[in-house]
């Protein structure tokens, strides 16, 4: 931006020293992600080397103490729970955000905003507690055992709702007013301009909101651990208990040894890679104008 500043006031020695310190810190912070992945890989390596990659997905079962390391049932559990939660939370979240931005009376919108900000800050373990004490008995009364895929889906859905709503609201607010005025001038009603103008204009933001919420649902550990029942199996119905990858790590890390431990790190690596893929997707969706990203530092 104002990079010509360098020519007006040449950096003093103190300034140059400051710049080096900042650069070094930035390198350390930027390196954390790489460092984290390398450590996961290093700890997962024994099982990848001795057992190989394929047995993690086609062994007959997950009996790590007997050398059977099939992660698929837990991967399926993770995906089912996350996708289910998204199917419930996404339409509800979009509708709520659209209501708050375009339809709600101003005071009610402010109140709703506060409530959602509060919900976004509630620890996942508290959602888990609510699920365990309130939701699971309700489900058990209808269809035992209660701790099940559906319980995980519902708790996750409530948990990711604030994320979806907050991100969707900011996407909706970034739609230029001119588009809406144009729509109104053309005689489009509220619903018409929402569906034909706002949603297409904010599409990338809406999708990014969903992808980020999906990443959160995939990685969630505690809330799911508390309500999902934690049986390693492919669920036949939504009433069956499941175990997710993250819950498996939390449950077994305490006593895992050797290859079992390495297999848990491998499942952590799988989770990390899934999330990286989703975050890269969200980043692509979020930067429609790459020119903005490559702006020069002001003092560089």
């Amino acid at each position, binding site marked *: *931006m104002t990079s010509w*500043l360098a020519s007006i*006031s040449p*950096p*003093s020695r*103190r*300034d140059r020293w400051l710049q080096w310190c900042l650069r070094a*810190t*930035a390198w350390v912070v930027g390196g*954390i*992600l790489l*460092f*984290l992945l390398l*450590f*996961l890989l290093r700890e997962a390596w024994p099982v990848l080397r001795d057992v190989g990659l394929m047995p993690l997905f086609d062994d007959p079962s997950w009996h790590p103490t007997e050398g059977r390391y099939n992660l698929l049932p837990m991967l399926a559990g993770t995906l089912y729970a996350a996708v289910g939660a998204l199917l419930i939370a996404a339409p*509800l979240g979009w*509708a*709520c955000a659209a*209501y708050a931005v*375009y*339809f709600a009376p101003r005071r009610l919108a402010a109140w*709703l905003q506060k*409530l959602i900000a509060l*919900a976004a800050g*509630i*620890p*996942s373990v*508290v959602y*888990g*507690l*609510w699920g365990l*004490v309130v939701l699971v008995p309700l489900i058990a009364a209808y269809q035992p055992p209660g701790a099940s895929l559906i319980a995980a889906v519902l708790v996750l859905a409530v948990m990711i709702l*604030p994320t979806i709503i907050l991100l969707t609201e900011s996407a909706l607010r970034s739609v230029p*007013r001119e588009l809406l005025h144009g729509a*109104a001038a053309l005689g*489009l*009603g*509220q*619903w*018409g*301009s929402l569906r034909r103008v*706002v949603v297409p204009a904010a599409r990338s933001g809406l999708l990014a909101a969903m992808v*980020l919420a999906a*990443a959160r649902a995939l*990685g969630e550990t*505690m809330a799911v651990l*508390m309500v999902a029942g934690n049986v390693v199996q492919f669920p036949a119905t939504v009433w069956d208990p499941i175990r997710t990858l*993250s819950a498996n*790590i*939390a449950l077994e*890390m305490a006593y895992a040894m050797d290859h079992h431990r390495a297999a848990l790190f491998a499942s*952590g690596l799988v*989770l990390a890679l899934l*999330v990286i893929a989703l975050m890269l997707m*969200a980043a692509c969706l979020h930067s429609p104008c790459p020119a903005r*990203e490559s702006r*020069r*530092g*002001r*003092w560089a």
Partner: protein
Amino acid sequence: MVRAAQRNPSANSVSDRIAGKSLTLAALLVAALILWVVVDVLWQGAGRLSWEFVTTAPSDVGRAGGIAPMLVATMLILAVCLAAATPMAIATAIWLAEFAAAGRALRLSLDVLAGMPSIVFGLFGYVFFVHMLGLGFSILAGGLTLACMVLPVVTRACEESLRALPDGYRLGCAALGVSRAATLWRLQLPAAMPGLAVGIVLGIGRALAETAALLYTSGYVDRMPTSFSDSGRALSIHIFDMSMNVPGGDRGAYGTALVLLVMLIGINAVVFAISTWWSETRLEQA
């Protein structure tokens, strides 16, 4: 806004009314769900809450007694986390906002890190801090693991607040021959202070809420911690342990959840007040 369409008489069709009604219904449903969780915690937790509850140690594996050691452990973990994360986050934010020619890779790496599941941070902390650096299951290991976790959130928020400052600050200081270090310290950081505080509060919120990353780093021990190298049980882990592993522990878990919620809301309010006050006084001095 879409509201403009309301003034258009020909546009108020049946579909508008249906859409308005169903969106209202969805918003009501969302509000009801959130209130259900909040009121449940308030209702069930209030019965357990008392002065003794926050000042005494637990007895009978938590069914009786209080949560004093967990409160202290949580505070210590938070202190370690903030002491490590805040300077690094602010330095990185300054680098990104003021110096970096193209911080694209760094920003992307931070965004990916922000989305990493907390259990992955737990695994990393368990290998790196607990074993490799030999910190053992300790408050130090837990706090440093949390620091890695909140770094991206705090950094991006601080960067935004530095970027929001008008260019005139920089130009004015350059014209006056003020060094960059002095410009940052005297003008830009104080002016951005409310934004920096918001970033730090976001970090505190995430750190206080975290459970999975602490399971295998700061440990489970429910004694009063006496040093940073002691294992300490955070409030969130106490909630988890009480509800899952202690039959009849639900009430204690709800009491702890209420304390945690009140802390989260309280810290938000206090830090906002302090940050406004501080930025005012610093700007007067400068």
